[in-house]
């Protein structure tokens, strides 16, 4: 790559799990997304980067079913779908972990991982099957190599930031999900805990999931991402393959120093 020209990464030969084509979203007069294409493949980590107001949040909320796009189409495993609500997204296998993690601090790890999907008789008053839930939670955490949590019966409040993030991510992926979207998963974490979470993200990729990570930390982007998609002012302005790019190029695209050839 030379000069001001940046080359869109060549598309791999697989079908994306999720593909957005020409998706637009307005809030009144504000154009949050302008004909954005977006795609995630199985077993890859996509970093979604861009300055504040670039449209990252709007894009992931569209994927998560919180926002309805004004235009464009969404394909899931090659078929056109509509994602009208977060429940629709969950049904497809798209899980989103927002920055606030949505954990109940007073409940233990097992209760949080099964929140809203407890193993219990459907009538609502039969006793919970704590044993099966605890076994499954332990299995999921072990499968993802989350080993620092001493007891899954400790209240989440007593866990470290990295452990809490790990619990939230494990919960998101334990229900046969195919895509997991992580909103700034390391924003509030120290060095060691950030490493924990990045290792977890890599394991999700090994297990075949498509992972979308929003982050401001370029160094992190280069540590985990296979592809880097840059949004600027509601448009997708650049796409990089990790192996073929440098942090300076990514930062340049974020700042708008260079424009992708239309």
């Amino acid at each position: 790559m030379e000069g001001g020209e940046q080359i869109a990464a060549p598309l791999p030969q697989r079908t994306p799990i999720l593909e957005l084509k020409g998706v637009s979203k307005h809030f009144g007069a504000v154009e949050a997304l302008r004909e954005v294409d977006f795609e995630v493949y199985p077993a890859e980590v996509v970093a979604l980067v861009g300055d504040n107001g670039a449209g990252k949040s709007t894009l992931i909320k569209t994927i998560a079913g919180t926002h309805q796009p004004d235009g464009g189409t969404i394909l899931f495993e090659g078929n056109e779908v509509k994602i009208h609500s977060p429940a629709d997204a969950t049904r497809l296998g798209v899980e989103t972990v927002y920055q606030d993690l949505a954990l109940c601090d007073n409940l233990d790890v097992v209760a949080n991982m099964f929140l809203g999907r407890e193993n219990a008789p459907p009538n609502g008053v039969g006793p919970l099957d704590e044993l099966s839930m605890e076994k499954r939670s332990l299995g999921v955490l072990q499968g993802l190599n989350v080993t620092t949590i001493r007891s899954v019966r400790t209240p989440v409040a007593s866990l470290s930031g990295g452990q809490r993030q790990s619990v939230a991510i494990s919960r998101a992926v334990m229900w046969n999900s195919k895509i997991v979207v992580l909103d700034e998963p390391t924003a509030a974490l120290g060095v060691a805990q950030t490493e924990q979470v990045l290792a977890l993200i890599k394991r999700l990729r090994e297990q075949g999931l498509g992972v979308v990570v929003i982050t401001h930390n370029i160094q992190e982007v280069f540590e985990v991402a296979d592809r880097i998609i840059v949004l600027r002012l509601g448009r997708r302005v650049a796409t990089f393959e990790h192996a073929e790019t440098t942090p300076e190029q990514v930062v340049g695209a974020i700042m708008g120093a260079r424009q992708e050839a239309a």
Partner: protein
Amino acid sequence: MAAAAPEPSALEEAAQAARREGLAGGARIFVATTWQRLRTGELGSLPVLVALAIIWAYFQAKQDVFLSARNLSNLILQIGVTGTIAVGIVLVLLLGEIDLSVGSIMILSSALLASAVITHGWAWYWGIVIAVLVGAAIGAFQGAWFAIVGVPSFVVTLAGLLGWQGVQQHVLGATGTINVFDSHISAIATSYLPHVWGWILAIAAAGLYALSRLWEAARRRRARLPAAPVFTVVVGAALVAAVALLATAILNGQFKNHWIFGDYTAGIPTAGVILLGLVIFFAWLTTRTRFGRYIFAVGGNAEAARRAGINVRLIRIAVFALSGFLAAIAGLIQTARLAAASLAINPGQVTLEAIAAAVIGGTSLFGGRGSVWSALLGALVIGSVANGLDLIGQGPDVKLMVEGAILLLAVTVDAVARRGRAAAGRV
């Protein structure tokens, strides 16, 4: 905490440390763990039990009939109303909300029962049904007003405290009192279990508790999950059995003419069995069922609960309905005790005593933390103080001051524990 296998107790932590580092290490870990849990409010009901023991010892030293079987039986009857209302208050507090209307719902249910059975000549059971249904409906109405319209529960139920008292006065009419002489209704607060039934209940309760704990530990061990050591389970079950059997023996008059327990032989008061039954049922509901789990979840983080697909509004409405239902049950007990529905009861004081009981018992005012058992323990603390002060000849002035001081102390402990958790990163 709603968990089948809670964190290891301070004793278990100490035992592990003792195995690693010898006895001194074990003792050090025990003290450190206990202190840390005390500071962060995670010792459960231990502080209340200690407080209760001190209160009982103090009054027994001042007035030696305090622990007599007759007075203990009185105490049980005295806490029936507060304890029953406090069970509902615990549920509401777990949600992180407050219900100020329970005192007024209680006196209204009492007035409705009296009016239906005495003034209109309905059968006693229809009177009970209507009183209880109206209580639950009022609770559901207030819960809906809070959950759907979005008015803070404090305000909705404050309006209820005033409004339902007005309705009660309207129902009672000009005389202000309806005497209720109905043998079925008064039996709620004036009857006692036959001695044999008392023994059967106590043995069955102790046995079921021991079996369920052992069975659970065995299942966990078979599933290769960490389980409570057999020793801990056996000690716990033995303690429960000892309390159940000792209480039954005292109330059944087994220690007749003992220097402490006196000559009382009436048996276990029915009202006490009702209260204990309600506490056990709601303790099970909150810790072992999906509905209970959702109460804790909404109280801990309502937004997270909503995003997990929990119907937060429905949970809130249901909890306020249960609070109204339990207040109405308390109204039945109150009517039976007084043999009347009367204007003389101050609903504000009833409400605040029930809230005080729940908080003194260890349920947090800030939502998501606590246990239904705190209703019983807190009611016992308040009841014991009131009863003891009566016995040593103090008037209502002193009682109110002491109650106020105890409540302030309990809320302070709650607030300080919350700060301790924040400092330890365990908000």
